[in-house]
């Protein structure tokens, strides 16, 4: 079992890497690996027509496909009333990308973002704007497409000007625009975009168009209201689970108790077939399904079906458990490969005045997005397939669906509705999406079928954030300053598993070590070893990926070094950032935001409290976090979290502030409460009663300061998360003297100091 569907070996002649696409200079090594790997996956998964288009993005020969992000009518429709419909390359799942796209395009088009409706575009070469591929993830959307989408808006505006010039019989240079209209100042004539759109969008885009001077931005950089707030406050927003088509049957499934099991005999088939509304019963790979007229009837029937499950091949072994896995990671003795090496760690440790050692671990996690997975498949009389499916990579799922259906990719119309949360859930992982089931059931029934997974089935088949384990050794000099740091990171990450073979055989999995390598601190001797140890479950990307635990490990251990060296953790970090003005300024900013650094313990609002601090550098964004905690009834109470975030430059400060709030909530939820416990080869918790997520009464106040340093644009959706677990852990240590090295906190009963 490999997890995410592995692409076949690249076919000869298909593009490798990113032909003809210039990479922004700001990409980290990790970013390049991520892009390149993704491009290869997509390159082999795409139909040849698209793949060729991808490979000819710089082509200027007549008849060649235009570069992604340049064919204006593929993105924009302007109605007679001037309303703009934007087909976005990205799927909206709460992160506000639809609004951000409207701001960016609207800025250059000269149209108010409030006039936009934004939908996720269908699969197609026009939309491969994330450096030649397309995905919604990795906090890449805005930063990867910002220039492209600005140019798209500017191209559209130029086409409107050209159309207006032809209509008014005036020179194009005599025309200008105001939001939604072309203006001829000399005559006072104005024409709305809606009147011009038909003629304008038929024109060929100009080769080069001027972009607005950022000093004149009216929408970019402003707290423009989200376009979807009202439809999401009134129940009108439609998600995959809400989709319906004529003649549709509904399917509920029962998966094998353990991954790898296959359905054998049914003990009560006739009785189940006779239940109300039941249409038919089906065996599927690793599951059984009942089709009925209503989902609840299907669910009742499939739950009643008495299935003899047989052991299949692959899957999880009956004796697999989280406890066994953690013991195996701890016992792993392999040397691994160096992910970072600076100076001479061994000598520095040997010569250190004091050596500190510690082991840290973090559990498997579920995405636990509130919308359970669903898929609606409809075969059409012309042999094509319509598929509605939550997904973060339309072209990849289109190709995978085509394979299941026995069609060519272009015969599959993939619809990507709003996501009811995602956090990495909707990439293509093995056994983790209902689309194959929907396709097979629609074929078997000869009718459209919508599959909905119950929450219990979802917890049973969600792909999990990997378990993490790190062993640290740190050396201090006589003054208590860190002079050496050695980290052994043991396990497996999603980049390595899914793209490892495509990374040119690199022994270092960037998703295993991110957050431990490339830290900004001036510790002269460093070594980070990436030690592979396979993890049997289907592993996944989960909001902030390796950073979701590695920054907890590293920043907690750094506090241990501070304490061992008799230093204040904030002051020590400032000292270690002496050569890093950007990070140092951000640390000072979060200190200021919190009213001035104080570690505590101290008294506040009648409780004894302390604060912890942490830094993180995720997704090309810099983040500094401070948390204030107390202890009540043995549990951590987080009162306030202060976050200073520097993504370089921004599009929407209001959405950024909310994304930080959201990331704080998820980071806190994971560190306080969450743990997927495998026992006997299966996850134990199957609903929120046994997999609690952060409730409202444990949400802290969150204070956000956005710093625009002018550095190349970084990500937003994920970076607020990684600093939260270590800031809380460091505060808990300051308050109680107790160092929590194993997440979640709920496993440790804490007493006040």
């Amino acid at each position, binding site marked *: 079992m490999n997890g995410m569907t592995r692409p076949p070996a690249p076919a000869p002649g298909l593009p490798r890497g990113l032909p003809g696409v210039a990479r922004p200079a700001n990409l980290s090594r990790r970013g390049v690996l991520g892009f390149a790997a993704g491009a290869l996956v997509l390159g082999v998964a795409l139909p040849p027509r698209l793949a060729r288009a991808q490979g000819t993005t710089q082509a200027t020969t007549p008849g060649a496909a235009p570069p992604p992000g340049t064919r204006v009518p593929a993105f924009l429709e302007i109605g007679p009333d001037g309303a703009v419909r934007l087909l976005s390359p990205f799927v909206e799942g709460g992160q506000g990308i639809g609004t951000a796209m409207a701001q960016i395009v609207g800025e250059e088009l000269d149209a108010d973002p409030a006039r936009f409706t934004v939908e996720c575009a269908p699969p197609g070469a026009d939309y491969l704007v994330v450096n030649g591929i397309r995905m919604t993830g990795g906090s890449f959307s805005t930063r990867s497409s910002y220039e492209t989408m600005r140019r798209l808006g500017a191209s559209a505006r130029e086409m409107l000007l050209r159309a207006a010039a032809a209509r008014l019989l005036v020179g194009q240079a005599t025309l200008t625009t105001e939001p939604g209209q072309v203006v001829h100042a000399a005559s006072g004539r104005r024409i709305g975009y809606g009147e011009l759109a038909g003629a304008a969008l038929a024109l060929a885009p100009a080769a080069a168009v001027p972009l607005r001077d950022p000093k004149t931005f009216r929408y970019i950089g402003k707290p423009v209201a989200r376009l979807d707030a009202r439809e999401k406050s009134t129940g009108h927003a439609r998600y995959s689970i809400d989709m319906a088509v004529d003649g549709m049957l509904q399917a509920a499934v029962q998966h094998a108790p353990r991954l790898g099991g296959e359905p054998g005999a049914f003990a009560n088939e006739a009785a189940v077939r006779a239940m109300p509304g039941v249409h038919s019963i089906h065996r599927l790979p690793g599951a059984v399904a009942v089709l009925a007229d209503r989902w*609840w009837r299907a669910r009742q029937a499939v739950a009643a079906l008495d299935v003899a499950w047989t052991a299949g091949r692959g899957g999880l072994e009956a004796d697999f458990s989280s406890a066994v896995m953690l013991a195996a990671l701890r016992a792993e003795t392999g040397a691994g490969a160096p992910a970072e090496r600076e100076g001479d760690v061994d000598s520095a440790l040997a010569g250190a005045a004091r050596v500190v050692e510690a082991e840290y671990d973090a559990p498997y996690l579920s995405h636990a997005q509130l919308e359970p997975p669903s898929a609606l498949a409809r075969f059409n009389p012309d042999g094509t397939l319509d598929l509605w499916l939550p997904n973060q990579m339309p072209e990849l799922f289109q190709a995978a669906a085509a394979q299941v259906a026995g069609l060519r990719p272009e015969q599959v119309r993939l619809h990507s509705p709003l996501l009811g*949360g995602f956090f990495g859930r909707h990439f293509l992982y093995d056994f983790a999406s209902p689309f194959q089931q929907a396709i097979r059931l629609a074929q078997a029934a000869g009718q459209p079928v919508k599959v909905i997974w119950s929450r219990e089935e979802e917890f049973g088949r969600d792909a999990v954030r990997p378990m993490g384990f790190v062993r640290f050794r740190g050396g201090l000099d006589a003054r208590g300053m860190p002079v050496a740091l050695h980290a052994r990171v043991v396990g497996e990450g999603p980049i390595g598993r899914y793209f490892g073979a495509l990374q040119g055989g690199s022994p270092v999995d960037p998703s295993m070590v991110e957050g431990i390598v490339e830290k900004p601190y001036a510790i002269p001797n460093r070594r980070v070893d990436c030690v592979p140890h396979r993890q049997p479950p289907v592993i996944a990307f989960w909001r902030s990926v390796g950073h979701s635990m590695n920054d907890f490990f590293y920043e907690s251990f750094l506090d241990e070094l501070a304490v061992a060296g008799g230093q204040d953790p904030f002051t020590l970090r400032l000292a270690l950032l002496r050569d890093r003005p950007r990070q140092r300024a951000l640390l000072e900013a979060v200190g200021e935001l919190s009213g001035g650094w104080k570690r505590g313990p101290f008294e506040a609002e009648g409780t004894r409290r302390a604060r912890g601090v942490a830094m993180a550098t995720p997704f090309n964004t810099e983040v500094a976090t401070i948390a204030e905690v107390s202890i009540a009834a043995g549990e951590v109470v987080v009162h306030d979290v202060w976050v200073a975030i520097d993504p370089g430059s921004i599009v929407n400060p209001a959405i950024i502030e909310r994304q930080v709030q959201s990331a704080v909530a998820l980071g806190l939820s994971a560190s306080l409460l969450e743990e997927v416990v495998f026992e006997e080869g299966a996850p134990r918790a199957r609903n929120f009663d046994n997999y609690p997520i952060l409730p*409202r009464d444990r949400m802290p106040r969150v204070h956000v300061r956005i710093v625009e340093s002018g550095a190349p644009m970084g990500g937003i959706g994920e970076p607020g998360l990684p600093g939260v677990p270590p800031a809380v852990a460091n505060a808990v240590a300051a308050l109680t003297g107790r160092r929590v090295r194993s997440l979640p906190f709920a496993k440790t009963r804490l007493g006040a100091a």
Partner: protein
Amino acid sequence: MLELTINGATHRLDVEDGTPLLWVIRDTLGLTGTKYGCGIAQCGACTVLVDGQATRACITPAESVAGAQVTTIEAVEQEPVGRRVVAAWVAHQVPQCGYCQSGQVMAATALLRQTPRPGEDDIAAAMTNLCRCGTYNAIADAVRAAASAA
């Protein structure tokens, strides 16, 4: 045949006893604003009003609300408290993914109908629905704003 009054309209429905109100609303009547999240009354995405009380429809047998007035998110703006709540939700830009927000809006509406000037304890007791996007602070701000707008 079961007779239910939903958003002021009476429906005669062919559903088995024990069928959760949620699935009658979503599936039989096609009102998809009310969401399925967990099925065990943990998350509150399915919250509707039954005679004005916030009720988790996923564990409420449909037959148990025969004769009652059921209100779903689709009708929330038909009365002033609901309109204020929705307006506050939009003004405070509460939703992110939005999946839980129908239930949150219904829970807030029920609270403010019963307690027009809720204290923090009232809000804490009433607003227990889960939000995986962590919009909790915005939710509390919006509830306070809707209350003070009365």
